[in-house]
């Protein structure tokens, strides 16, 4: 995703330069109609977020917090960790996501380099094997992993390790694809220039190739983290008795649903929103400094 964000700045200028003066009324309406529809779709996507935000201040009277808004309170925010196991599940989710992201990003980046930069027999087959996990519905992936863990006698150790194994698996393909896209779009003449200027292979890699590939690698890592953090289906199969945050939410749905979950949802939204905006601001500053 960040690749596109990074790329847009270049095309942006081209687009606005090429934009014609409005030709006629019909054209004007059709132009703005598309924008209007786009904005409406965005609004639709934000409706549940508004609900989560509002319900985080709800003082539920009944057992279930998913009911209507009853009365305003701050107390959910001051007692976030009060529901049993909620913050433990958050901690486990964060640990799992970070571990899975690091492994998937490193391994996947190596694979992307091999596929884009090197030629060898079996490249086509490798591409197919990397594509297959993405064409596999999560429920199939989860059940096949569980089938393997059960049949090899690993069902007693289901937990952190098996969750990480599963998460790395479905993140890996996305990392390869994202980093590959970045590497393919890179101008290899920059590296040749570095070599011409007497940089050795390692220096070229460290000072030229890696910085150029970085936006793709960062995008891949962010994608992995969010896929892993939010995963329910595969985790449900491989977690055993461990409870990640999505599993906690799912379990809470069946019993009484603590309103603090909406607080966590709101915090997650705000933290990542601020993070993404901050990354974008830094990127713009840097782009300006370069120009």
């Amino acid at each position: 995703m960040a690749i596109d964000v990074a790329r847009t700045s270049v095309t942006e200028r081209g687009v606005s330069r090429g934009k014609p003066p409005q030709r006629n009324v019909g054209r004007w309406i059709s132009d703005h109609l598309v924008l209007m529809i786009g904005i409406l779709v965005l609004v639709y996507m934000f409706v549940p977020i508004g609900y989560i935000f509002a319900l985080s201040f709800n003082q539920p009277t009944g057992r279930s917090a998913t009911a209507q808004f009853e009365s305003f309170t701050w107390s959910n925010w001051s007692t976030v960790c009060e529901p049993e196991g909620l913050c433990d599940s958050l901690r486990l989710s964060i640990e799992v996501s970070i571990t899975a992201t690091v492994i998937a990003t490193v391994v996947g980046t190596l694979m992307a380099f091999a596929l884009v930069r090197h030629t060898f027999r079996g490249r086509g087959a490798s591409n197919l094997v990397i594509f297959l996990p993405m064409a596999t519905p999560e429920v199939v992936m989860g059940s096949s992993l569980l089938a393997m863990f059960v049949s090899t006698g690993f069902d007693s150790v289901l937990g952190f390790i098996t969750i990480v194994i599963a998460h790395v698996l479905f993140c890996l393909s996305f990392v390869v694809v994202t980093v590959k896209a970045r590497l393919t779009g890179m101008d290899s003449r920059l590296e040749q220039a570095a070599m011409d200027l007497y940089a050795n292979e390692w220096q070229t890699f460290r000072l030229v190739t890696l910085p150029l590939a970085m936006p793709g690698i960062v995008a891949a890592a962010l994608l992995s983290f969010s896929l892993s953090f939010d995963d329910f289906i595969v985790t449900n199969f491989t977690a055993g008795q461990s409870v990640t945050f999505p599993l906690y939410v799912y379990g809470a749905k069946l019993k009484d649903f603590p309103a603090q979950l909406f607080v966590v949802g709101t915090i997650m939204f705000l933290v990542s929103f601020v993070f993404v905006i901050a990354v974008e601001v830094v990127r713009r500053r840097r782009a300006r400094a370069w120009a």
Partner: protein
Amino acid sequence: MTHSVPPPAVSGEAVVNGEIARRRGWGWLLLVPGMLYLAIFFLYPTVQLFLTSLYDPSGNYVQGYTLTWHFANYVDAIRDNWHLFVRSFLYAGIATVVCLLLGYPLAYAIAFKAGRWKNFMLVLVIAPFFTSFLLRTLSWKTILADQGPVADFLRTVHLLPPDGRLLATPVAVIAGLIYNFMPFMTLPLFASLDKVDYRLIEASGDLYSSPLTGFRKVTFPLSLPGVVSGTLLTFIPACGDYINAEILGTPKQYMVGNRIQAAFLTEHDYPLAASLSLILMVIVVLMVVAYVRRVGTEELV
């Protein structure tokens, strides 16, 4: 299958450069850790799943199963659950089409109409997905509830009979699928549209094509890689999803994912669950291959 497929090389020089960059030698060693990983944790489990699907169905979780190459499991699985497959592909198909219809204008607006707000709008597309998807689906449950605002409104304008419901209907389940997979559609579409040279679209207008013809003959074909990636990234997970059916629907709306999940985790009927999983996987892969061949794009992975 990517959020940003690189643009096809335009000049001959770029192609040559791409070829130069690719080297022979020991580079393939970089692939080894990842391939080993996929072999152990993807290919081997798939084989294991296949073997599990051929276990003797008369066994059980406690006493264990024996491998008897019981291919009749597949016949039983299809006979008892074919309606679930039909429903899954129907729901996922409708959701994918609606996602495309909603996501295309959005991606188009971001790529061509948003101006300096482009990056901000892009952030807004993914922003809702920073929050847990279970929480979002649960809040849809509240929104679509019998006493909720949407159902109330639809009853007021008589689009819904006085005792009509939204929740626990196919509409609610499909709406949930549409909502949850929207960014998987929008982002690849945007990545594709963003690379389209806007001057080509203008040129079609200069050459007296109506906006509609221009869209049909220029814009849409150029965005086809994004359409393919987006529809695949939406359709594949939607087929196997069971959360939306479980939260927003009733057992009457259950999809094949619900059945697999229940067979595996609550009934411990491993042979049934494994054969259902494999049937789903094979159908999905066949559909994907047929679709990609039909649309004819090479920029899949």
